[in-house]
């Protein structure tokens, strides 16, 4: 029986069938542009095609606004207190027609940030989020000091450097 099993290599054939199946699947999906959405392979062709990230990917810190365009942050300073590297600095202020305090300044020093997401977890008002942006390199140290003003250093908009990474939600 053992001899017969050795002479007829069924397990080798099974292994070949498995790899052959995967070869066929990837071969017929990877080389056709039309079926890009149903790709069978795990390789991500990053610069040309935006990366598929996990939903919990921790990118750059972003301030959120509500439907009326109001800043959601109420300056409870929970994020500032919990931050292990102390990269967040908030200055409280008052605004007409708004009960809650309003952040006059919300500074974020990204060069020291460790992207631990403690700030987002501590936030009781869902007013900040780590977006899906990972292309955060810059040429000047000043570009890492983010605030509520400016173009390239704006805490509300995704960074203009990231050409290929997904910045939604």
């Amino acid at each position: 029986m053992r001899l017969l099993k050795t002479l007829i290599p069924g397990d080798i054939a099974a292994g070949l069938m498995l790899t052959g199946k995967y070869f066929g699947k990837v071969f017929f999906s990877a080389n056709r542009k039309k079926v890009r959405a149903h790709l069978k392979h795990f390789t991500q062709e990053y610069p040309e095609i935006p990366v598929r990230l996990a939903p919990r990917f921790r990118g750059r810190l972003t301030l959120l606004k509500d439907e009326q365009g109001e800043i959601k942050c109420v300056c409870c300073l929970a994020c500032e207190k919990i931050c292990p590297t102390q990269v967040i600095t908030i200055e409280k202020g008052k605004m007409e027609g708004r009960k809650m305090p309003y952040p006059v300044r919300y500074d974020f020093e990204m060069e020291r940030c460790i992207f631990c997401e403690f700030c987002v977890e501590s936030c009781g008002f869902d007013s900040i989020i780590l977006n899906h942006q990972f292309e955060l390199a810059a040429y000047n140290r000043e570009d890492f000091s983010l605030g509520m003003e400016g173009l390239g250093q704006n805490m509300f908009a995704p960074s203009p450097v990231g050409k290929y990474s997904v910045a939604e939600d």
Partner: protein
Amino acid sequence: MPPMTLLQTIAMGLIQIVAVLIVVFIMVPLLTFAERKVIGYAQVRLGATRTAGGRKGFTASLNRGMWAMGKVPVLSFFRGLPVFVADAVKLITKEDIIPAKADRAVFTLAPILSVVAAFGVFSAIAYYPGVMFYMPKSWPLIGGLPFNGAIADVNVGLLFILGLASVGVYGIVLGAWASNSKYPLLGGLRSAAQIVSYEVPLTLSLLPAVILAGTLNFKDMSVILSTGQGMSPLAVIPLFIGFFIYTTCGFAETNRVPFDLPEAETELVAGFHTEYSGMKFGFFYLAEYANMIVVSCLATAFFFGGYYLLPFGLQRIIPASVPFLGHPSFLFFMAKVSLLLFVFIWVRATLPRYRYDQLMDVGWKYLIPLSLVNLFIAAVIRYAF
């Protein structure tokens, strides 16, 4: 037609040699590229898809130009086909290092021996039975001369091929010894033991084909075995078994996975070519892939139907009156060789490496008895039916 003069014979021979060499030199880099892609696809990834340049020189200026045009500076067309050119260029331009304590003469001789043995075999392989085409009449000296399907139609072609192919192991053993280093030496010893062991079932698995065909000429053997003329229909059985024994031994002869013990990187760094670099390593690489092509050619010609459509002598089902399918064709031969080369890569993507004692077990305990039984079956079929 008048008999060819000496000059004409030499000229035609050179033309044929150059033609075969060009085909092989194109096929080998393509094969390395195919290997990357096929293994990649089988493992649910993409393999090499792009070629990026360096930071200096010609490729760097290309890169800067592409950045200036607003494009990502990688060559990614045809799913990464430029990779095979880059591979070849890298091998040729790399620094060639000879270790200080190495035996310089033997160290240089070894890859040459390997490559010569691998390429010499191509001279006796017939790619088409008879004349492929005639040279144009208007050409001087060689006008109207036949371009044969084989460079040399050797009377005992099979012996020539087997003899020359087994010279290749000298390249590995000599290179391993001349490196003056322990890992190459161990790899070389393993390789010698492995190839000597597997030479026996390899030759024994070809003997049924010789018995059934009754000749040693490569072209005649291939034609008789695939058309099955003068053979019993039962001859399919030994040919079928022989095909599997031969391909298994072929994997071992060419040091391919699952029998690539000479280059088991977990134990022996890179085996016999650890100390080699540059084009000397490229020669070993070239020889390995050329050997793969040779093994595929032999398996195709003797067992897999050769220049005809159907394998294992089943071609008699299709009468010769059928256009194209009933006739021998160079395309059938190349298609079958490509299929077998694909199987080589496919097996590499699937199977892990055998242990050394398992390798010897497979060779001595199973393949040699099996091929002897197969030889007996073939002899019975030849003389009883």
